[in-house]
């Protein structure tokens, strides 16, 4: 229910009550202290206003204890506020494991959303209620910021890098989406609606016309860009086996290790020479400029969906590395 003149935003996510509680606590405590200060100022100003008998003010030696008290007590309160703020912040940043993945792409001046099942939408986002949603997002141009005021969450969307945010809606309805980071002429037009639906309604919505799931669309792209010619499912391939790769630690040629997450996979597609998996040659061409953000998301969805168990490579940490070295040097 929204009045025409709201003074407080609706609470529609699991974190919102925490944020609001902290906010109201802050309003209370700082309001009280401010009120005391104002009352003191006005009381003193009136009570001790200049009159002939008090033209010479009384000299008071400030008690040290008072100074120490109003240094230490605020410091303690402030640290308390910090702890509370940090606690809520951790909560906002800790993504639950069972979250539903949705991908967002920001560009001047629209929001594009992709669902794992393949639906794409612009400036509208359909999500089920009471289910954690993880949004993985990147920008095609400048920095944007995805803000759901009723969920009390916001994150900057950066070009050339994936970031994630999450929320779990607790109320069905239609709520604002805003771009919060100034991004150019139509910044104030980069807005949209999030539709929070009952799970059944969401399923119905999902069923309506998609061109196949994201992963299956990614598989098509995988064929289209001929990725499969090198990244085969056999250890003899010129590139690492991708099945089961996602979320694993990878050994690099310079002996460091890196987590095969969205950002690493993204970099490996757009700038393949940057971090080469151990045992492979830097022969992969760059796909910068060929693969756009939405296609990247599809490819990533496909890579994430590949089952880990299928190939023979037993130790997943080494991924394709050692096996490939034995076979042939010409790999990537």
């Amino acid at each position: 229910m929204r009045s025409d003149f709201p003074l407080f935003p609706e609470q529609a996510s699991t974190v919102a009550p925490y944020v609001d509680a902290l906010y109201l606590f802050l309003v209370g405590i700082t309001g009280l202290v401010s009120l005391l200060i104002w009352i003191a100022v006005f009381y003193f100003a009136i009570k001790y206003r200049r009159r002939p008998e008090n033209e010479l003010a009384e000299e008071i030696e400030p008690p040290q204890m008072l100074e120490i008290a109003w240094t230490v007590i605020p410091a303690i309160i402030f640290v308390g506020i910090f702890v509370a703020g940090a606690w809520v912040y951790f909560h906002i940043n800790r993504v639950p494991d069972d979250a539903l993945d949705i991908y967002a792409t920001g560009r001047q001046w629209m929001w594009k959303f992709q669902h794992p099942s393949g639906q794409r939408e612009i400036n509208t986002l359909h999500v089920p209620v009471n289910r954690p949603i993880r949004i993985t997002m990147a920008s095609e141009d400048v920095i944007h910021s995805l803000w759901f005021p009723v969920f009390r969450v916001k994150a900057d969307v950066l070009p050339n890098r994936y970031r994630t945010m999450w929320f779990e809606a607790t109320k069905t309805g239609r709520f604002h989406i805003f771009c919060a980071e100034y991004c150019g002429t139509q910044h104030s037009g980069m807005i949209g609606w999030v539709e929070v639906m009952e799970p059944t309604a969401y399923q119905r919505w999902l069923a309506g016309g998609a061109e196949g799931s994201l992963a299956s669309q990614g598989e098509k792209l995988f064929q289209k860009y001929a990725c499969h010619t090198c990244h085969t499912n056999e250890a003899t391939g010129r590139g690492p086996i991708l099945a089961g790769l996602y979320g694993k630690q990878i050994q690099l040629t310079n002996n460091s290790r890196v987590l095969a997450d969205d950002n690493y996979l993204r970099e490996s597609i757009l700038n393949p020479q940057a971090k080469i998996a151990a045992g492979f040659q830097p022969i992969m061409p760059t796909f910068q400029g060929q693969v756009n953000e939405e296609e990247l998301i599809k490819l990533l969805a496909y890579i994430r969906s590949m089952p880990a168990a299928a190939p023979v490579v037993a130790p997943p940490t080494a991924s394709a590395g050692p096996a490939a070295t034995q076979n042939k040097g010409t790999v990537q």
Partner: protein
Amino acid sequence: MTPSTLHDVRFIEPEKTRNYLNEDYGVFSWLLTKDHKRIGILYLLSVTLLFFVGGFFAFMLRLELLTPEGDLLTSDTYNKFFTLHGIVMIFFFLIPAIPAALGNFILPLMLGAKDLAFPKINLLSWYIYMTGAIFGIYVIVTGGVDTGWTFYTPFSTQYSNTHVFATTLGAFITGFSSILTGLNFIVTIHRMRAPGLTWFRLPLFVWSMYATSLVMLLATPVLAITLFLLMLERTLGVGIFDPALGGDPVLYQHLFWFYSHPAVYIMILPAMAVISECVAAFTRKKIFGYKFVAFASLAIAFLGFLVWAHHMFVAGISVYSAMIFSFLTMLVAVPSAIKVFNWTATMYRASVSWQTPMLYVMGFIGLFTIGGVTGLFLGAMGVDVHVHDSYFVVAHFHYIMVGGTVMGYLAGIHYWWPKITGRMYPEWWARLSALLIFVGFNLTFFPQFLVGYVGMPRRYHAYAPEFQVLNVLSTAGATVLAAGYILPMFYLFWSLWYGRKAGSNPWGAVGLEWATSSPPPKENFHVTPVVTWDAYDYPAFLKAMRETQNV
């Protein structure tokens, strides 16, 4: 009540016929002056002019926001106006306002010095400032810039097709003026103090200015170099901050805020400086906890360098670095709180005058408190995620910069007006304008806290209809505020000719600036003063003054 029995007692020096204003005449006697007082006046005129330029943009923004639709200005114009409003107000008004205009005039007088340590560099600072300002004006006249005053990359380097280069060059140049002013102040405070004026006898104005100058000196070069790299990127097309070419836009934000957060303290510390002076003068008391207030200034300057990334809690920094910056942000609030408590305590059992500067002081304490405590909301990371880049932030920093700095600036202007011009301003008009400003300010900015928390993002040209009521209130307040700001222009100007003659010490204030005639002679003091008392030693001072009267 206003002209107290102490009023107009020329106990220290008789009125002089010659002063810094009538020493020489002609345009060149001003444009080539090395007198810190005249340079202060040059700054006063230029920052006032630019304040009204920035104010014009603000007013247009408020008018546009009267309705949810973008109907008065196009989105392009709106974006340019808020950018120019920010740039003009921050780089050309708030940063130089109190230090370069009032500080320039008052600081050497307070120290009992004949001038700043480097008068030529002082004049050079003004010319550098004007050069920067001319770039700013050029940009305004030729079509504006739409990046926001923060110049975030890659928008500013790759996407905006407005005058980003000329604007950043203007800000870059102006930075050097600020550096040189800071340098001049530091050397002056170290080396030009009158005999007997030890560090703990310095007025708190000087302590605060010293802290400000340190920040100017150590933070501004980082802004200069950041803008330099930005200009390099924009002209050459290299990718220092452009992710498409391998750069990191978040690094730009780190470098930018490394300056721009301390810059907040460049703006507020001088206002605190003025407030400390006025509280003492208009309560006739020693500042409560002098040393605490003095060291609080230095603590703010120091801690101010360590909190820059609290502007980036949602920008993609790690959770752990966010925690460190949040913690340090809480610490930087402590010295500000100490100051507010001490100012308030100074009024206890005092002799509180209700003259205009004191009204501004009370306004400052009230507004700065709100601005300060809402800073805690933003420092608490969990709340910041929600309110970051919303109108809550806009309201918060206007409470600090307008409620704080501009109130302090106006307090200072009224407090030192008799010293600067030798004339009194009309008290009742000034009180009226102070009242208008206080009411107008709160009406303008308090609704913005509410609308921000409800969810209105900043820098929006058109907004959702449910935000309208609060925006209308805000625009109504802006109208009152504008009237409050224009009024002093008239009565202060009027007072130059028709104001009552002030005499050397109309407030009965201590402080060396009141120990010379009004307006002061060119060399400030005829005899180098020797200081034998602590700052704000009012009881002793006033007793002594009475006795001289009886003699």
